[in-house]
């Protein structure tokens, strides 16, 4: 069935110039797909878990056989997606030699629907920005997609919800162009944190180590770098709700040794409406007071062009400056910063004489070749399917909770990611993580300590087994779900303007006591 359907679909993409013909073909194709239901696949229909991530993974790396997932094994037989060969020139026709006999053996209910949805999504992406662009085709595909996901009454499966968000994102691209999405529609607006958003945020924190990983790793590095300092000044690119600093303050007052905590000053970079920031500042101050942590808070504004000017930050003599850059806003009132904005911020580190720069970002999968929109789109699909899977694996029964998190937090981020992918593909920008950029700019790497690494491992241990910590280089920890890297936290040292780079700095792990008589064991 799939084969038939795919053959039908092949035709349109091949003749995108004649729109009327396309429509006819498409209409034919869509109706033809109708009867394909899970029941056709007989005994295999209920067997598979919705491990969507593996499904997509198998599509991207068609040679790769996943032993742990039954779906993965099966898909490796199909060779359905020859997407790996030339993602840029992907068309439906090229990609799907679905063998009829393989179908019978392979697809479970979830797999089948999921595969179909993914194909459609990629087809839509293709139609939007691939070599045979056709907005009409895209529109039609999206209509079909909406039908398919809407069919899922009562929330649907994970796959359907994921597909729905991506459909939404693509629709947005189609309707309003990429610009609306650069902002990353956040359900959180300046000055008003909806309780929903907060609820979702808390849920996300409880269900995954995603947020804590970045915060705690960065904080531990900051703690180590500022050991012994009397004044610490943190310049925060995106304070969001200030959640990161609560645990830092706690750690500052709990340092072994019993010395009084250093004075902590936090300057947050603000954009426009600062009422929410003031509120955040008040809250942080109250929290600090409750801990007995000396604290002060200030804001500095970005320029009109969203650039950070170091001069706008007031630096007190004798204080240690730390730049904190968390680039995965889950609770942020701001749009994800433009590249120029982040660049200006990171570059300001040297000017401000910062001692350390902590960076938390979503790493890109290493792709040697430059990818077009479709490739990036698939990358985002892959990434978010991993996130979806990770949430589901940990909390399979809590569909409602996950649904809320997906809708409120992940959905807007998907929209933003898709928009960015579109924009960057259009402009031919070479994507790379900010970490690579910093390395290229000559920032030194600050080694992640054993303590930090252990902390990350312990943190992940509180959640599902599928989460892993990897060390990447000496200064980066990466949170991965199964094989997909989701988040990276790295620590850097800006170069003072005229001195040569210093590759590492000795770290004194905080909180490690030496046993008596254990000198024997120290290097």
């Amino acid at each position: 069935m799939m084969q038939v359907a795919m053959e039908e679909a092949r035709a349109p993409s091949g003749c995108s110039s004649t729109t009327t013909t396309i429509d006819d073909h498409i209409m034919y194709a869509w109706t033809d797909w109708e009867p394909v239901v899970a029941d056709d696949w007989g005994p295999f229909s209920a067997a598979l878990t919705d491990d969507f991530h593996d499904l997509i993974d198998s599509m991207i790396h068609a040679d790769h056989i996943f032993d742990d997932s039954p779906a993965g094994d099966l898909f490796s037989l199909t060779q359905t997606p020859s997407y790996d060969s030339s993602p840029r020139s992907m068309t439906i026709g090229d990609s799907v030699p679905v063998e009829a006999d393989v179908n019978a053996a392979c697809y479970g209910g979830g797999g089948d629907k999921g595969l179909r949805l993914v194909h459609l999504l990629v087809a839509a992406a293709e139609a939007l920005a691939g070599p045979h662009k056709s907005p009409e085709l895209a529109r039609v595909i999206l209509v079909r997609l909406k039908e398919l996901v809407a069919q899922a009454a009562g929330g649907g499966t994970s796959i359907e919800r994921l597909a729905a968000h991506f459909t939404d994102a693509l629709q947005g691209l189609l309707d309003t162009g990429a610009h609306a999405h650069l902002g990353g529609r956040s359900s959180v607006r300046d000055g008003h944190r909806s309780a929903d958003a907060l609820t979702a945020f808390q849920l996300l924190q409880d269900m995954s180590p995603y947020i804590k990983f970045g915060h705690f790793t960065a904080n531990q590095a900051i703690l180590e770098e500022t050991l012994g300092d009397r004044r610490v000044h943190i310049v925060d690119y995106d304070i969001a709700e200030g959640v990161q600093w609560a645990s830092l303050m706690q750690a500052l007052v709990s340092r072994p040794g019993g010395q009084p905590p250093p004075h902590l000053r936090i300057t947050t970079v603000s954009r426009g409406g600062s009422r929410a920031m003031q509120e955040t500042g008040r809250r942080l101050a109250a929290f600090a007071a409750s801990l007995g942590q000396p604290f002060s808070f200030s804001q500095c504004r970005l320029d009109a062009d969203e650039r950070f000017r170091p001069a706008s930050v007031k630096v007190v003599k004798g204080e240690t400056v730390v730049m904190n850059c968390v680039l995965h806003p889950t609770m942020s009132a701001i749009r994800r910063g433009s590249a120029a904005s982040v660049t200006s911020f990171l570059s300001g580190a040297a000017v401000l004489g910062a001692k350390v720069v902590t960076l938390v970002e979503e790493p890109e999968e290493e792709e040697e070749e430059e990818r077009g929109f479709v490739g990036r789109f698939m990358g985002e699909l892959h990434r978010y399917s991993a996130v979806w899977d990770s949430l589901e694996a940990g909390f399979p029964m809590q569909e409602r909770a996950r649904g809320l998190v997906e809708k409120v937090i992940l959905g807007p981020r998907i929209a933003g990611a898709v928009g960015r992918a579109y924009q960057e593909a259009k402009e031919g920008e070479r994507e790379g993580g900010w970490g690579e950029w910093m390395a290229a700019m000559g920032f030194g790497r600050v080694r992640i300590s054993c303590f930090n690494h252990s902390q990350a491992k312990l943190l992940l241990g509180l959640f599902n087994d599928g989460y892993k910590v990897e060390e990447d280089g000496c200064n980066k920890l990466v949170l991965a779900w199964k094989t997909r890297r989701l988040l990276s936290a790295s620590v850097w040292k800006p170069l003072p303007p005229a001195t040569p780079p210093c590759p590492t700095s000795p770290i004194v792990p905080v909180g490690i006591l030496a046993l008596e008589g254990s000198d024997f064991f120290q290097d």
Partner: protein
Amino acid sequence: MFPSKKPTNINPPPMCVQADSGLVLTTDPKPRLRWTVELHDRFVDAVNQLGGPDKATPKTIMRVMGVKGLTLYHLKSHLQKFRLGKQPHKEFNDHSLKDAAALELQRNAASSSRIMGRTMNDRSVQVTEAIRMQLEVQRRLHEQLEVQKHLQIRIEAQGKYMQSILEKAYQTLAAEGMPSGVGYKELGDQALDASMGFPSPHDLQLYGGSDHQVMDLQQQMNQSLDGFLLTNNSNNDNDNACLGKKMRPHHPYMNPNEKHPFLWDDDLQVQEEASKSDQIQVAPPDRGEGIDDIDDVYEAKPAAGMLSADQSAGLEKKFEGPSSHGWHQTDDDRTWQLRPSKKLVL
């Protein structure tokens, strides 16, 4: 110290100290060098001065230590043992703690068997080595405990902070005149002290078993997640969908007249983003049964016989054992609370 196996010990202790060099030799027929702590410390100093056990050689060590009566032979064998003893130090960085501990145990076992095989005179050295390795293991474990302890208080701090945010938000909502999540308010302090439980008990066994700690934290955490739930915010803002529920008289699981922590006001509405017709509806439509919403987030304990077939099947599994599932039943308010499960058995 290690008692001599010689049955007759009438004379002063089996060792005699050579006053000039400070070396301790046993009085056994074959005079062997006893590596006292002091001597060993000097040895270690010397080794460190020379750049570590791999760089130091018996000759150079001998020179640096400058201890009379110390022969190359003594130093050679001691250095070898020292190097072996050093290895666990490196491996701790690479393996997880469990592996390292296992390795250590293996090594200890090996050295114990070596101990058996040797003559009694070497035994003291071997045992010392074993003890030192044990100390190393303990030190590493202690380190891990420290990390764990700090992690716990940091998570707690973050949880408290989140609580303050949420409380503020709900107060704001209440102030704005919208019906607020009564359930949330009633939870009071319980809510959101999101301290996550410690790693599973099997990890903790390595730490010398602080099982009571585990229980404590898990308790705390269960209580904290309590709040989450059904954070029912009945925000009438069209832009937000709520998890809120309408209390229906025919609510299958709860007697609406009961005071229940998760009761909501009657005028709470479920809001869907129906207004956003151009968006995909991914939120489930109001199913008209309040419990369904709770179900999927943090479940309420179902009254017997009230379950639909598949739900009861699902819950059956949850009853199987608290440690393997995400659910804990608390004593008092008949609610299930969420514990992130490491290994969910379905």
